[in-house]
């Protein structure tokens, strides 16, 4: 399924994580970055006495949009059209790419500047453009870095977080042809600025994503830091926005809440440097032709699940990534999806179907830090466990799954626990069976499926008297 290659892990998460954990530079970069953002986020969130109310409001706004999504989509289409924009619908990635490349080709465009869009990574738009001889130019500094390195993004907000300044300098020296360049972040940013400025000034077409789109008014919103968004959204004569259908919000007033929740949760600022709102086409100001591509690509599948659909509330702030102890160590690439981290672990399997990403819901210790940080109160741990249920059910629907080791073991354990006699017998058996493994009251090596435990931990031996044995003796 090449359409969803960007969302489909090739190896199970534990295997990918194992390798990533060895990368000491990644560990250092990530650890430092996430610790820094966590502190910033905490500071600006603590400032607001009504943060809890804002989160509640955010969840409510997104749920209102999702629960009547068909109505909202029609309202949006109507409003954008009346404001002079054109609305297109795309069932999947291939269709969306066809629409965008079609627009570019009809206008004879050879180069497209791009801003802020993991969605276009999801559909692999760049490959489609390149195949017909159109050059996509990433203008977010991190996306530029990722593009020049021929790499993939590892974080929703800071996609090049896995690269340090020295690596970036090398990349710019090689690919941008800048000879004298230090690794001072300001110098690197200046090199990117000069390279991109040329592109902005001559660009004929821009492709953007969207953080939000207001159904009532047709207003689209992009939240950014560098100014490349404003460049892309203002300078070219032709603008195409590719947007997942879940980005809709019902009313203009909803910005009151979301433009507080997003900056504080994502970059830990009271407000990000630039936020752009535009509605259709404005004569004499900015692009004179605007296209909005509404993308499904699995989102309606997520909507089908009453418990899992809260994942569509996501406003792509990445707060969950920054507080997740698993993400902090394994990094984004281990998830092998353009949506990594806690949100990725629940969104990715729902977009592509649990059978295509069965290990992702298990890539969590269920600590709940993500739920605590989520500005729209997505109960990620509950959805993870819910998806584990789906994974098990899907696994058990086949013979191999139904009679596989884990399934049988869990069924047997369930039966053991369902009767006092069986349970107490199992306790006695465990006490016996462990004998050959115990040395001085501890077990240092467990066999088979449990060996992962003793890879780095000792296990205290099962005591000779259980609690209930003691209780009975005492009576």
């Amino acid at each position: 399924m090449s359409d969803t290659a960007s969302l489909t892990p090739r190896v199970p998460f534990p295997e990918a994580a194992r390798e990533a954990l060895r990368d000491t530079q990644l560990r250092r970069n990530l650890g430092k970055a996430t610790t820094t953002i966590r502190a910033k986020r905490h500071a600006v969130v603590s400032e607001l006495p009504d943060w809890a109310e804002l989160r509640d409001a955010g969840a409510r706004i997104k749920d209102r949009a999702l629960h009547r999504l068909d109505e909202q989509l029609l309202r949006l289409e109507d409003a954008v059209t009346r404001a002079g924009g054109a609305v297109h619908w795309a069932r999947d990635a291939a269709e969306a790419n066809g629409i965008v490349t079609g627009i570019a080709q009809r206008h004879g465009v050879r180069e497209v500047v791009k801003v802020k869009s993991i969605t276009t990574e999801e559909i692999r738009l760049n490959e489609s453009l390149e195949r017909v001889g159109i050059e996509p130019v990433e203008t977010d500094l991190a996306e530029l870095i990722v593009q020049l390195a021929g790499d993939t993004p590892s974080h929703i907000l800071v996609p090049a977080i896995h690269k340090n300044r020295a690596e970036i300098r090398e990349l710019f020296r090689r690919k941008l042809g800048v000879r004298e360049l230090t690794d001072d972040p300001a110098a690197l940013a200046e090199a990117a600025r000069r390279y991109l400025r040329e592109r902005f000034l001559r660009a004929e077409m821009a492709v953007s994503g969207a953080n939000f789109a207001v159904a009532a008014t047709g207003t689209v919103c992009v939240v950014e830091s560098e100014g490349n968004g404003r460049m892309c959204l203002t300078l070219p004569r032709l603008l195409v926005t590719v947007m997942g259908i879940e980005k809709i919000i019902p009313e203009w007033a909803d910005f009151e809440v979301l433009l507080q929740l997003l900056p504080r949760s994502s970059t830990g600022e009271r407000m990000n440097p630039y936020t752009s709102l535009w509605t259709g086409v404005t004569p004499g100001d900015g692009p004179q032709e605007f296209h909005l591509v509404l993308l499904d690509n699995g989102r309606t599948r997520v909507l089908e699940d009453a418990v899992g659909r809260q994942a569509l509330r996501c406003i792509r702030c990445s707060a969950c990534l920054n507080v997740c102890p698993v993400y902090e160590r394994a990094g984004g690439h281990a998830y092998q999806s353009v949506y990594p981290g806690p949100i990725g672990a629940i969104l990715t399997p729902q977009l592509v179907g649990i059978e295509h990403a069965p290990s992702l819901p298990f890539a969590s210790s269920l600590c709940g830090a993500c739920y605590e940080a989520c500005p729209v109160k997505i109960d990620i741990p509950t959805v993870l466990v819910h998806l584990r249920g789906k994974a098990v059910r899907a696994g058990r629907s086949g013979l191999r799954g139904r009679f596989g080791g884990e399934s049988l073991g869990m069924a047997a354990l369930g039966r053991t626990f369902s009767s006092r006699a069986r349970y107490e017998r199992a306790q006695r058996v465990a006490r016996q069976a462990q004998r050959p493994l115990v040395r001085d009251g501890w077990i240092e090596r467990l066999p088979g499926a449990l060996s992962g435990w003793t890879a780095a931990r000792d296990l205290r031996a099962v005591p000779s008297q259980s609690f209930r044995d003691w209780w009975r003796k005492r009576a």
Partner: protein
Amino acid sequence: MSSAREEVLGRVRAALAAAPPRPVDDGMPAYRRSDGEPHEAHVALFIERAADYRAEVRRVPRGAEGEAIADALRRRGVRRLAVPSDLPADWLPAGVELLVDRDGGLSHAELDASDGVLTGCALAIAQTGTVVLDGGAAQGRRALTLLPDYHLCVVDAGQIVGLVPEAIERLAGPGAEERRPVTFVSGPSATSDIELNRVEGVHGPRTLQIVVVG
């Protein structure tokens, strides 16, 4: 054969019908719409917060804005200044070449080659140190405040609101009813993409100066 539109809408309806969502409560939780502070406190907070984001801010009494503008431009060394066509006359400095953007007449190249741009704003938000542009009076089109490397923005004290919700409410007219593009500017552009150090000045004006009047 159904179109993509029909199919997507159909899928949405089917999904919601198959698993009907629990109804969402009516109304909104009571988040703050006002911080209860007096206006003078808002002005002071705006100046403090804008400065936090590395915008240089100066406050002058009403009547002194012309002088403050001229002074800022002089210190910056601006010789060719881009301006919208409807700036108040007493803002326009002498001794500076004015590039007036009449009917979007200035090209990208001309804007890029200017030394800076002077505008007013739609409103400003104290809590976040944000200046908002809506293409209305004394602001011009978006490219005007985007391409020059220096933006001098005049904010009337009366345009300052306390919190974000107040700003959004006030912007509903220009942004939603009149469908004008709206831009929120909070400090000069920045990136945190290199090891998460905030680096100022990528695209967009790298220097933002604000004159608060009144």
